């Protein structure tokens, strides 16, 4: 809100706000992160969760609470006693034997009356048979611990829908877990980067330069002298330096001498603005250039003058930005936001206005470049937002799920460079592959809660052995690759002898430690991580994981396989 000069105090008080409404108050702590724009995106999102396991409901809980628009749980299973034991969103008094999708939806909806939730108890096979139309109605699809064979069909189905929903594939077993986000592109325009934009001290625009040069430092009133903002001091000091030395300070000795020259401008020890200037001296001798992250995005564009008809808005904006930076002084559009600095109100606001006026001019230039690039239909607020955040934009190119596992060279090289991350990934992949061929249903998964313990035990299916698992791993990475300790550790977390024979027998013929364990804490941890990534995919204000994110809660670490 801004007041014009002519407004009187009454005019101002009529524009005054009062306590926000209940919805704003309810979401206050998250609105301070992703603002109204992020909240709107979240409320328009439709999320599909495949499976109603503990990990799935933990994820959904963290999306329902902040107010996701809609969610569907696709799960055909009936609630077992084991489900009730580890899933907070199943009811010990009512859920047993009922569809767990129905029960989970009912209990999740209690968290937020503003959210719509639907249970779909169809079989995943029948849904896959319908083709892409079922999935294209969603903003995001999250698949939790699905058999390899299902993921192998789901992932290409979604990948082939050009504007289709991203897919998050989640796997967990005992203390280990991983996830991968399959997406084509993810653009972050409304970023929350902590890197500040350049103040262009080294390349001052005319009004800033004139403002700095016209200061009569010698005869200035002492109060005013102690209130010159450091940016102005630096611009002036650099000009003086260049007049004397011809070029900006470049060697270490020159930089130190420059810093000293700034301190010499200080009249009294208590002039903190000069100390601030000296502390920020690097801004004067660090050249304002195009950040490497932005330059890397330019490199993804077709050459200049290539028609961009039908290209994504982000590409058109990026191309306009490249055109902007191709003109001297080869910098990004100026940001209107000035950090706080030692000064008085008058000097600070004056400087702020100098920056703002210039930023307005450069924004106008940028807008024209966007139109020239064929972006006349891009909403003005998106163009302005892009211009404002130009220094921190991000554009991610995603990959297809499973690409890593078919790239043997990459697998082997990652086993060297990121051994524990890669080991965890291939152990979980092998487990998933094994379970696809030898499905372990919980011994009572037929919903027969009356089966006695003895009965259940005799029905127990064969458990995966380390030998079987390692054979799968070896098949993927190649028979000639020696598997390191990390692989055995990761494999062993799911496949260990009941009698600790692992250490002596080198883990052959061991049975599984936790092949199907959806531990409550691991489910909650993953539910938090996945929801966080989902929020990033939906709000487009933060940067999601691009690659496999691996989690080991034995030693408590996370890692990324890029």
């Amino acid at each position, binding site marked *: *809100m*801004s007041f014009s000069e002519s407004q009187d*105090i009454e005019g101002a*008080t009529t524009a*005054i*706000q009062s*306590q926000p409404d209940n919805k704003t*108050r*309810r979401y*206050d*702590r998250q609105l301070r*992160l992703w603002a109204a724009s992020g909240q709107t995106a979240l409320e328009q999102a439709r999320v599909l969760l495949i499976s109603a396991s503990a990990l799935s409901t933990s994820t959904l*809980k*963290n999306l329902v*609470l*902040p107010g996701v628009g809609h969610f569907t749980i696709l799960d055909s299973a009936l609630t077992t*006693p*084991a489900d*009730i*034991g580890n899933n*907070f969103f199943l*009811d010990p008094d*009512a859920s*047993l034997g*009922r569809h767990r999708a129905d029960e989970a939806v009912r209990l999740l909806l209690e968290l*937020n009356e503003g959210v719509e939730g639907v249970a779909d108890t169809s079989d995943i096979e029948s849904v896959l048979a319908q083709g892409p139309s079922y999935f294209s109605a969603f903003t995001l699809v999250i698949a939790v611990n699905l058999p390899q064979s299902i993921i192998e069909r789901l992932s290409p189905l979604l990948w082939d829908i050009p504007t289709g929903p991203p897919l998050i594939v989640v796997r967990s077993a*005992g*203390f280990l877990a991983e996830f991968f986000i399959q997406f084509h592109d993810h653009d972050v325009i409304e970023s929350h980067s902590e890197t500040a934009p350049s103040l262009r001290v080294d390349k001052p625009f005319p009004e800033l330069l004139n403002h700095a040069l016209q200061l009569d430092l010698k005869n200035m009133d002492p109060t005013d002298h102690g209130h010159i903002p450091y940016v102005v001091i630096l611009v002036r000091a650099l000009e003086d330096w260049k007049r004397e030395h011809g070029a900006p300070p470049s060697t270490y000795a020159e930089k130190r001498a420059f810093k000293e020259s700034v301190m010499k401008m200080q009249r009294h020890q208590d002039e903190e603005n000069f100390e601030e200037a000296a502390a920020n001296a690097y801004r004067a001798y660090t050249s304002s250039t195009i950040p490497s992250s932005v330059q890397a995005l330019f490199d993804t564009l077709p050459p200049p003058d290539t028609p961009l008809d039908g290209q994504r808005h982000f590409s058109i904006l990026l191309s306009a930005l490249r055109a902007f930076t191709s003109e001297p002084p080869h910098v990004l559009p100026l940001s209107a936001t000035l950090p*706080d600095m030692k000064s008085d*109100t008058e000097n600070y*606001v004056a400087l702020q206005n100098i920056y703002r006026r210039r930023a307005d001019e450069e924004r106008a230039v940028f807008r024209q470049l966007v139109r020239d690039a064929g972006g006349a239909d891009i909403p003005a607020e998106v163009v302005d937002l892009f211009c404002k955040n130009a220094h921190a934009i991000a554009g991610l190119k995603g990959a297809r799920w499973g690409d890593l596992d078919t790239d043997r060279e990459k697998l082997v090289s990652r086993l060297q460079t990121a051994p524990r991350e890669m080991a965890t990934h291939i152990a979980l992949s092998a487990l998933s592959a094994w379970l696809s061929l030898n499905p372990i249903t*919980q011994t009572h998964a037929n919903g027969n809660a009356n089966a006695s313990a003895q009965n*259940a035990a005799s029905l127990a299916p064969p458990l995966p052995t380390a030998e079987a698992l390692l054979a799968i791993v070896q098949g993927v990475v190649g028979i000639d690759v020696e598997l390191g300790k990390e692989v055995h*550790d990761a494999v*062993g*977390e799911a496949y*260990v*002898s009941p009698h600790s024979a*692992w250490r002596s027998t080198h*883990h052959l013929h061991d*049975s*599984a430690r*936790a092949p199907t364990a*959806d*531990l*409550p*804490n*691991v489910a*909650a*941890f993953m539910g*938090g*991580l996945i929801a*966080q990534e989902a*929020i990033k995919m939906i709000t487009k204000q*933060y940067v*999601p994981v691009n690659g496999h994110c691996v989690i080991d809660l*034995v030693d*408590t670490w*996370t890692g*990324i396989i890029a």
Partner: protein
Amino acid sequence: MATPDVARVNGSSHRTDWHDRYYHVDQVLDRPGPRTDPSFMAGAGVKEFLRTQCKILVIGAGGLGCEILANLALSGFKDIHVIDMDTIDISNLNRQFLFRPKDVGKPKALVAAEYIMKRVPGVTVTPYFGKIQDKDDDYYMQFNLVICGLDSVEARRWINATLVNLVDPENPESLKPLIDGGTEGFKGQARVILPTVTSCYECSLDMLNKPTAFPICTIANTPRLPEHCIEWASVLEWPRVQGEKKMDTDDPEHIQWLYNIASARAKEFKIEGVTWQLTQGVVKNIIPAIASTNAIIAASCCNEAFKIATSSAAYLNNYFMLIGTDGVYSYTFEHEKRDDCPVCGGESLEVSVPRSWTVERLIEMLVEKQDIQIKKPSLSSGAKHIYFQAPKQLEEATRPNLEKPLVDLVPDGGDITVTASSLPFSLSLRVTYV
């Protein structure tokens, strides 16, 4: 539909663990993993301890606390106690999932305990609606583990010092592992503290972000940011206009008043950006909080509690931090014990100060310095009182010392003992002059 069996144990209505209740958890309790410590006794014994003997205290029933309670209950902890002094506010509902709009105004500890017991049969959650400082050493002695989900540095320092003081080398039971979690936006951390053995909360005080403080002269004379105008309204105008009336940052009328005053000042100085939300954020020092980050950190804390209680896997040594704004970045490391930690170190903290410093200047330093941060410190040297904040008479008697040079009261190399009513420990300083 069949419901899990109900049985009477010890005369109380108690649902037994139905068959397959712990189908998932038991997979890691029945078998060790390759990295499991050889001392792990897989099977019945460890389950018995977890489910019938282990007693755990949860401090805080807020963003982290709600998650912690649910995770512990599902993991098999059956005897859980929870302390929280707060009541439920509407702004809690975006993440504190045990609370509903109808619960606004009720004590968090009570509502949370009731909800968990309803949803997870056989678990007893004993709530206490009050302060951790209300409880004595005997109370804390009864627990095997303590988990903290707090948003207050002061409360964390108090419980940390209390648990360090509790340790009796003759009695292994007196060492209570403390698991501490904290979040801010998409970032958070979880750590395991073994009082006297590992680095403690006080050891890492300098890792905290420095709170933004605006110099009073900026607020009074040269405002530049909307925050400066808000601080002017709350720090200077409120006491001037409202006199003795205490400012309640939870009272919307008070926020409205501050907002109006701050807006008028901003207009006068042509500063943009004073809003209702910003006013509330500045005066309440609001930290953004979301369900997902709380879920990650609470789960991490509970996972460590579970591993410590069962030995089913090694526990965290000793610090896990997570940043989720740009991908998922985490860092697990061992934070080192400080020999001069005032709580667990035993050695005096060496400080060198200019000879010109007055007592008042030293006090200013004690308040501000990142690794000390003692609000309202009282100072003594041997039997000599230097300055005491309370009682009133002592404060008056020692007040003249504030303006005296420190060197007149404490010799070079002399010791100063610093205490504060909010902290259950004293800091020992060794002063040298430069």
